[in-house]
């Protein structure tokens, strides 16, 4: 008797869990096996007549990275590793335009950003045609958009150290040693 009542009650709990399942999280998906072709969707954007201020034409293809936390994080790493900061300075702008504000000369949709990276833009932005796979382009675009809050808050990274002109976690060791520390640990460890 008692068991049956328990079973019924746990059935309810299971139903609630199933409801959670229905709200499955696209945000967390990791797409490893997307064999991105090197002739990707953005091939449609073979444009050279673009001028500053004119947004790129609308594309039919939808960015798979929008709202995806993993892709945004990958885009962030690529952004750092490929030295985008060299010009854009962690989104704050330097030699290139800032990316943290809401002013987008060439449009702010993922497709526009991808087109900008692929085609390059006058006054310094080089073209990365053929050098970056489609998947990585979408990831970069998603991260760039997250910097100015165009991405949803939930999937965006919680700590954008770059924007505070700081070294991120994945950088090489920092250089503010505490001298005494290395003195006490000579055999096994030296603090940088």
């Amino acid at each position: 008797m008692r068991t049956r009542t328990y079973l019924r009650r746990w059935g309810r709990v299971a139903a609630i869990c199933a409801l959670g399942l229905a709200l499955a999280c696209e945000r967390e998906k990791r797409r490893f096996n997307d064999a991105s072709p090197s002739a990707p969707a953005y091939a449609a954007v073979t444009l050279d007549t673009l001028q500053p201020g004119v947004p790129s034409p609308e594309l039919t293809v939808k960015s798979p990275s929008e709202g995806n936390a993993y892709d945004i994080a990958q885009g962030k790493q690529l952004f750092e590793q490929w030295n985008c900061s060299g010009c854009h300075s962690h989104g704050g702008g330097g030699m290139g335009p800032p990316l943290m504000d809401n002013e987008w000369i060439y449009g702010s949709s993922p497709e526009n950003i991808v087109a900008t990276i692929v085609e390059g833009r006058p006054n310094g932005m080089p073209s990365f045609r053929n050098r970056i796979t489609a998947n990585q382009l979408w990831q970069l675009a998603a991260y760039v958009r997250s910097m100015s809050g165009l991405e949803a808050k939930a999937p965006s990274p919680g700590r954008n150290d770059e924007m505070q002109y700081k070294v991120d976690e994945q950088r090489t060791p920092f250089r503010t040693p505490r001298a005494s520390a290395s003195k006490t640990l000579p055999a096994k460890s030296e603090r940088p």
Partner: protein
Amino acid sequence: MSAQPLSAERAVESDPNSPASLHDRLERVWRNGPGLWGWLTSVNHKSIALRSIITAFTFFGIAGVEAALMRVQLARPENSFIGPDLYNQLFTTHGSAMMFLFAVPMVQSVALYFVPIMIGTRNVAFPRLNAFGYWTYLIGGVLLFSALFTNTGPDQGWFSYVPLAGPGFSPGKRVDIWAQMITFTEIAAIVAAIEVIVTVFKQRAPGMSLNRVPPFVWAMVVMSFMVLVAMPYVATASAMLAMDRLIATQFFNYAEGGDALLWQHLFWFFGHPEVYIIFIPGLGMVSAIVATFSRRPVFGYTAVVLSLVAIGFLSFGLWVHHMFATPLTQTGQSFFTAASAMIAIPTGVTIFCWIATIWSGRPRFDTPMLYVVGFIALFTIGGLSGLLLASVPVDLQITDTDFLPGHIHYVLLGGMVFPLFGALHYWFPKVTGRMMSERLGKVSFWLLFIGVNVTFFPQLLLGIAGMPRRVYTYLADSGWGGLNLTSSIGAGFIALGMLLLVINIARSLAAGAAAGADPWGGETLEWAISSPAPDYNFAYIPIVHGRSALWADTGDLDAVAGLREDRREVLQTTMLDAVPDSRHEHPDPTIVPLLTALAVGVGLIWGIFDPIGFAVGGVLTFIALAAWGWPEKPKPNTHEVVEVPK
């Protein structure tokens, strides 16, 4: 009920319509309300503990299925059954669930069920807090597993080392869900620990002075004190991790002066005592079973109790032996090796005392006792392999290899799960009023015993053979295929044993032989009352005259009368000598604990997505707590007797 109540007049006076039987009167006062509402509002320690035990077993089952899936993946090299993304989620939720959602809640639930009965009281000290603890635990567990089913399962390992678990390398909400699950379970664990300590200190039956408390109860008290000190550390650490991820604090970001090793220190300061938090209650269960089935009290009561206390203390001095491969000083390492060696002494003493108990006793080897022998055989392997790990040079070679999962499973399966299953067979009659099948019990014991050895001994060897742990696959030319396959086959034995155990439970529930009040001829007070235990536990609070409450007297038990029978009143005694001291009225069933838990849940879960959630949850929690503390309408016939301090 052969005894005549002394206070019969008084009871009649307070409730003129009262039926004649004392049992009916008490039952009416102490039982849960009817239906679903009654279920949600229950504050009875047995109801709460039982559902907590069932919840923990459910999580144990799910985490066990995860383990089985992992063993299938590892059965042969370069297997493609499960990819790394899912595998990492599986082993993380397996470890986290076993530690936080199964082991600790399970031992605490067993304590919350049996400690009040064993010390002769009617309920735990704070019945509503107890219910609140269960609800938070349930929310935390459901959160973790629903995350796993929605591909948001944490994948950073149950130890959550930063920076891997930090904002830079664990995007999304996976780790946040893990951290919040920790918060839920820590609240529940701390609440349960306080329940156990206060119940034991203030509500023991008259005459049960501290040196007459059963070793089982001592084990639970030691465990509770450890929870009180250790759990806040992991709660703090996981809060820091969550803040690093959510509001950009820099606790663990070395670029800003934070430190990845800070996490490890905080985590292992909790993490090592955690193993003993899980295993000391196992020792308590073994003590109870050994005494009953050897037909004599545990040999060396004082030595056993002092050993439990010593293990509790020493376990806080070992945490660094999880970090020997990090930059540490030589002296530090030697200290932790010595401390690790020291803890083997009290552990050894307890085991020697049990062997002595069996030696001089007249044991029967029913299923619970088989599990005790299994415990000695398995746990000793776990403990001795732990000595290898505590030796710095050897540890450098075998830490983070498959030796570790082998060792920890010998310790936890041998030291906690086997005693727990023994306890399950031992106390099942008390909880349900029915006996479990001896034959099925013995078959499932042997399957589990063989399964554990076949699964985990190869893992010890694999570690020596150089296989790192937490790998989702291994190369074909590594030569690890055979041992891994053996290990996976062993997991099949364990699964079969578990299946038989579940069948045995179901069969016994439906058609088990009726158990009398005391089917084993037990030593402690829980065997004095009928099976299943009535809602009020004892019609009269018994008076204890010796360490073996039931073996000291063979006839009627002395008892006290005079507690109200129209209220939920319990007797409080003094802390050391258990002299009756005051009467205390307990609350009636209420929904407030559930509402409070839901308010906390709203805050913590919403907080994962937006810090504003914490504020909202905080306000809701305060409202719920205000409702909790708000006095009820005074009942008729209330006459408080105040004793003003001098």
